[in-house]
């Protein structure tokens, strides 16, 4: 049985449509000088993994998974710069969103998220992208309960830092 040849034109169109996912991940996981490399790396890894995409999940969910895995494992494997706990207090002013948009809370939100630990960063990123708990658990490989507990903690932390009140039901 011959292996199915992936449709490159369709793939490029789908990636182009969801390119925002890649921008956001690059901005959260890579230092400014590494972002273009990470962007290319993610597109390449998506293409490499594309034959394994069976269409049983949304293209977007699959794209989140591959892109996030590339950002976390690819960055470390290639020794690209990543935000470490000890550097966090020192690099506040270097955050691109804070320098570009220092006066707004949006800039502060990006800044705060980029300083979270990798797994927490992934979970809150997927939450803000409005992925369901099921999807977050499926992408990260942790349990739904764990996702829920962590999200409560992360959101509380972010709200406290950004001086936002808890949402009213």
């Amino acid at each position, binding site marked *: 049985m011959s292996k199915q040849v992936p449709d490159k034109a369709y793939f490029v169109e789908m990636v182009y449509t969801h390119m925002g996912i890649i921008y956001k991940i690059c901005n959260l996981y890579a230092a400014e000088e590494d972002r273009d490399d990470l962007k290319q790396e993610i597109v390449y890894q998506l293409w490499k993994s594309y034959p394994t995409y069976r269409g049983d999940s949304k293209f977007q969910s699959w794209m989140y998974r591959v892109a996030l*895995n590339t950002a976390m494992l690819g960055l470390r494997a290639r020794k690209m710069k990543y935000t*470490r706990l000890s550097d966090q207090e020192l690099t506040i002013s270097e955050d691109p*969103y804070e320098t570009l948009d220092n006066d707004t809370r949006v800039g502060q939100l990006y800044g705060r998220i980029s300083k979270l630990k990798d797994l927490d960063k992934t979970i809150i990123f997927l939450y803000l992208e*409005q992925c369901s708990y099921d999807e977050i658990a499926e992408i990260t490989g942790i349990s739904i309960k764990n996702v829920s507990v962590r999200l409560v903690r992360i959101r509380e932390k972010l709200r406290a830092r950004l001086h936002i009140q808890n949402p009213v039901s």
Partner: protein
Amino acid sequence: MKKDELIHMWQEGNDRMYRDEKTDRDMITQYLGEKTLKGNRSINFNLVFYGAVQVANIIMLSMNLAGYLNNPAMIWILISQLAITIGALVFGMDVFYKFREINNYSDTLQNLIRKQLWFYRRPYEVWLVLASVSAIILMTNVNLYIDNDNGSYVINNKVMYVGVTLGALLIIYGTQKATSLLGLRRLKGYLADLQQGALDQSERLERSKRRHRWLWVVLFLLLTASLIFGILTAVK
């Protein structure tokens, strides 16, 4: 229910980001071409290098089998080495297939890291041993070919011969092992980080790496000195 204000803020930030970023379809297609080449090159280099050693071994062993045809003891030694070489070649192909599999990022993050850890703990460890043994087989067979005295090979000092061969094996294996060790420790630390949701372990490894950097410098200096001493002794 009112939508979380964090989500509103996030969406607002995205609008700003889309305004600045410009990646069109042609650029995406271009990324595929560039990265495919780079990816293939790195895989091919390892594959070709390991495969080249095995092919060289098969050629040298075949030549030596012909050269020592009338020496029954040598024939058995050479046939054993040939069997190891063919086994190493097949195993190497399997390792590279598995390596490509564990670098498929479409799995969940936790599974991916578990698979990578398994790979580096099991098949990769065996591969390191086989790569070292292959280098020794090549070295031995070059000597057997050069010093073939009408189908016989004389070892003047058996203890020294065994010692040097074992020493070479240990050095080759040790160098490869030391190189891979740091990466594996990082990976283990990272898995623990993900499970615990903290970067403490990675941080500790980074600090330990910086603390032990002087050891690598001393080792490098010692090896360089012994190389220079060896060359000078050989020239005399």
